[in-house]
């Protein structure tokens, strides 16, 4: 329904005859046809056109300067050898040399493996997996309590990344400081290690996943809410167990939300590296937790040797930019689908 309204409004087809909005600015149309002329296309559009341009211009400028120019700049930079050493004056065009270097870089295989592990595990275990568990379980509780649990899971997302990672660092610390080791000690497990160094991948995935779970949780909870009540009640009256309720009635209706969250989060995980940067900075050791996006960042913007290689870094980023553009264009269809089905607006508890 909303889609329909959106389509109607801008054309203003319901303009009553003689309304002030229809007063033509130029007067070219109305001379011919009196009241009918007031509705002439030219007259109606004159004022809104100018206003629309005025309203859209700043947005368009920002998009041009900070999206279009950078995309083109990334592509161009990736064909040069610009670095701190060459400066902006002394660089050369090197064609596809940077891409050749990436393909032959012995680290590339490790980066790909790490990136797949990072995106795949975080997505499956947390952003969709845990999110689904939280949404389902909290939906079985009375509103007040379910809302409380969901609110608790929003905390990691709202917490500034630096503070959030800081807490995890101290949680993971070696004895006697680390909380994780203390808790394991209570449970009778003898461990005396810094978990960020001993088990970097499970830690990185958990650190990202605790933040990532909340988006799926909110969207899935809303979708569960949207399921017609009668279906759930009828099944329960028929004696269906909670599990078969979930299995046969709820899960089948969550197919699209799951697909949406998975698609959206894949892209944002692929491009994000802030938490890894703060937690392990790609370590411990050489490239243990270095993912593609972080490697691009290290190469271009935070080089240990002081010679940041913008060209090579841009080539690494180009790979992500192209994936991003393709995926975003695919979402265009996806979002349209969502608008069409018109899912109800999200709970506000």
């Amino acid at each position: 329904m909303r889609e329909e309204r959106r389509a109607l409004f801008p054309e203003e087809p319901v303009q009553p005859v003689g309304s002030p909005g229809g007063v033509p600015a130029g007067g070219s149309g109305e001379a011919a046809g009196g009241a009918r002329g007031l509705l002439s296309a030219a007259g109606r559009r004159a004022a809104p056109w100018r206003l629309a341009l005025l309203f859209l211009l700043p947005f368009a400028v920002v998009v041009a300067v900070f999206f279009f120019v950078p995309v083109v700049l990334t592509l161009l930079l990736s064909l040069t050898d610009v670095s701190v050493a060459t400066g902006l004056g002394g660089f050369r065009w090197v064609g596809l040399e940077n891409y050749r270097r990436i393909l032959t870089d012995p680290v590339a295989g490790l980066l790909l493996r790490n990136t797949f592990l990072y995106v795949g595990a975080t997505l499956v275990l947390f952003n969709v997996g845990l999110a689904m568990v939280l949404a389902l379980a909290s939906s079985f509780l009375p509103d007040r309590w379910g809302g409380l649990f969901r609110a608790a899971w929003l905390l990691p997302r709202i917490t500034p990344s630096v503070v959030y990672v800081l807490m995890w660092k101290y949680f993971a610390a070696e004895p006697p400081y680390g909380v994780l080791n203390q808790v394991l000690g209570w449970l009778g497990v003898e461990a005396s290690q810094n978990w960020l160094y001993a088990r970097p991948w499970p830690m990185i995935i958990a650190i990202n996943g605790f933040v990532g779970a909340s988006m799926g949780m909110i969207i899935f909870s809303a979708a569960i809410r949207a399921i017609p009540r009668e279906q759930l009640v009828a099944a329960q009256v028929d004696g269906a167990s909670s599990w078969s309720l979930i299995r046969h009635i709820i899960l089948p209706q969550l197919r699209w939300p799951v697909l949406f969250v998975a698609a959206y989060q894949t892209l944002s995980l692929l491009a994000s590296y802030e938490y890894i940067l703060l937690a392990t900075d790609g370590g411990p050791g050489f490239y243990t937790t270095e993912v593609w996006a972080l490697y691009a960042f290290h190469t271009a913007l935070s080089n240990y040797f002081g010679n940041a290689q913008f060209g090579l870094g841009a080539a690494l980023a180009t790979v992500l930019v192209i994936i991003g553009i393709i995926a975003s264009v695919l979402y265009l269809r996806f979002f349209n689908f969502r608008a069409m089905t018109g899912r109800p607006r999200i709970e506000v508890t």
Partner: protein
Amino acid sequence: MLGNISETRRPAWGAWLLLVPVTLPVVALYAWLLLASWSDGMEGFRPLALTAENWSFLWTEDPFAPSIWRITWNTLLFAVMVALGEIGLASTAAYALSRLHVPGRRFWLGLLIVLHAFPGITLLVAIFMLLQRLGLYDTLIGVVLAKIALELPFHVWVLKGFYDQVSWDHEMAALLDGADRLTTWRRVVLPIVRPGLVASGVFAFLSGWSEFLLPYVLAPGADTQTLPVYLSSLLSQADVADYGTVSAVAVFYMIPVLAVYFFLQRFLVALYAGGVKR
């Protein structure tokens, strides 16, 4: 409204048994941080001694670092400029896309959706070069512009949703009374979508207040230092045993975040559901 699935009031033991242990670590993280900020050393959850000394950074000047109040001021300035900029640009652009006759409207809407999904952070290298070229590198205004740009599509998208829900009758009535479109927007439509503007503004402020990567890369100088960048440098210097001060700074930094979390949660849930970048 219809929160619990169990109409029959079957006690949901399974749900409780699942949610409590899974959620415990989240709560524990924050409880630990609060405790650590008031104690002289922690061993796990056990404070060795309680003290207020950790908070002395608020009133003692460190001659080798910029003052905490200067850093806080920078952070506040950054967040407020980001919020005002995003609201200003998004409230106009979203109105145009929602209600006005825009040439090539389908193109703009498609572009908006693509930009909304596109991970802008992949453009960081290019934005870095761009700001250097424009002479805006290592300035607060440069980071503000970059931050606004990267988040603008999201805010336009959200506000357009709010405009779309405004009944056309309100505008029509004002137009019939002789007001032009600009006046109608300002006097009639804007007040109606005020909840959206507030939600969007609060969100933009928080996002600016929390932003680490952009200031860290685009404005690394001491003059433009913000709290997250300062905190990250503290964290990388601090010995693991010396987390009293670090925790206190972290709690101090979290104050506005927690205030919003406790008082304006309803806005946040609605906005996060709009699909925000992580």
